[in-house]
């Protein structure tokens, strides 16, 4: 009992000091249908807030969510890997990636390869000019 009280005291202290620290405690959570309404609310609220606060982004969000659903497990694994790369990219590199991706995705393979080769030879100024001409439509 004394040990339990010590643990409880340590838990309370850690909670006050570390804030989110205890969220890392391993626990077996149930399927979605068995979650408490409060837990579902906690998980969904972030998405709902973004949806409500960004009417202009709703079509994108829905399309992206539907695409995630359609992806194969292998595609999802690749996407996760790509997300890590995305996280490590600067805002400028992200802008370049968006523009190049949008432009290349409809191209035949040969044209994609040609653009990739041309891009490597471009100066920074030429790349900026290309991006201005090919900025993805919102």
């Amino acid at each position, binding site marked *: 009992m004394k040990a339990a009280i010590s643990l409880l005291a340590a838990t309370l202290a850690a909670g006050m000091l570390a804030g989110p620290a205890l969220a890392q405690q391993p626990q077996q959570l149930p399927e979605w249908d068995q979650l408490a309404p409060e837990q579902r609310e906690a998980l969904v609220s972030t998405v709902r807030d973004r949806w409500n606060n960004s009417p202009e982004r709703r079509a994108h969000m829905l399309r*992206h969510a539907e695409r995630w659903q359609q992806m194969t497990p292998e595609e999802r694994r690749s996407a996760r890997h790509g997300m890590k790369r995305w996280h490590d990219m600067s805002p400028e590199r992200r802008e370049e*990636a968006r523009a190049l991706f949008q432009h290349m995705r409809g191209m035949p393979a040969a044209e994609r390869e040609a653009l990739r080769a041309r891009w490597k030879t471009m100066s920074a100024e030429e790349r900026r000019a290309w991006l201005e001409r090919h900025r993805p439509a919102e």
Partner: protein
Amino acid sequence: MSRESENHPIDLVARAIHARAVERVPPRTLAQLQPRTAGRRSPGRPPAFGWALAAACAAVFAFAVGMYTLVDPEGSSGPAPGLAGAADGLSTPEPWEDPMMVFDEDPDLFVWLASDAQPVAME
């Protein structure tokens, strides 16, 4: 949990939120918490009321902290320096700054970024 469900959007969001919470744990706190849960348990003996109470309080704290993290996804303080790069590889949650990245960007863009056709934008 299957590998497929691990890559489900809602799972990715939850993992990102969890990773952000874990980043804020001081290493000393982690060291203090972990040994107490292992080694002292006597098999076959029912847990005492005190242990149950402690576990319940820990669960309540974990849930409250999770709620806090969700309500304030940006957080009032950034990730702990030096811990941001600790989680690497695909088997552990990455410290993504914005869990909503899953919905904000085209998932095919991420696939493209991961493809062998190394994106020129990263050079």
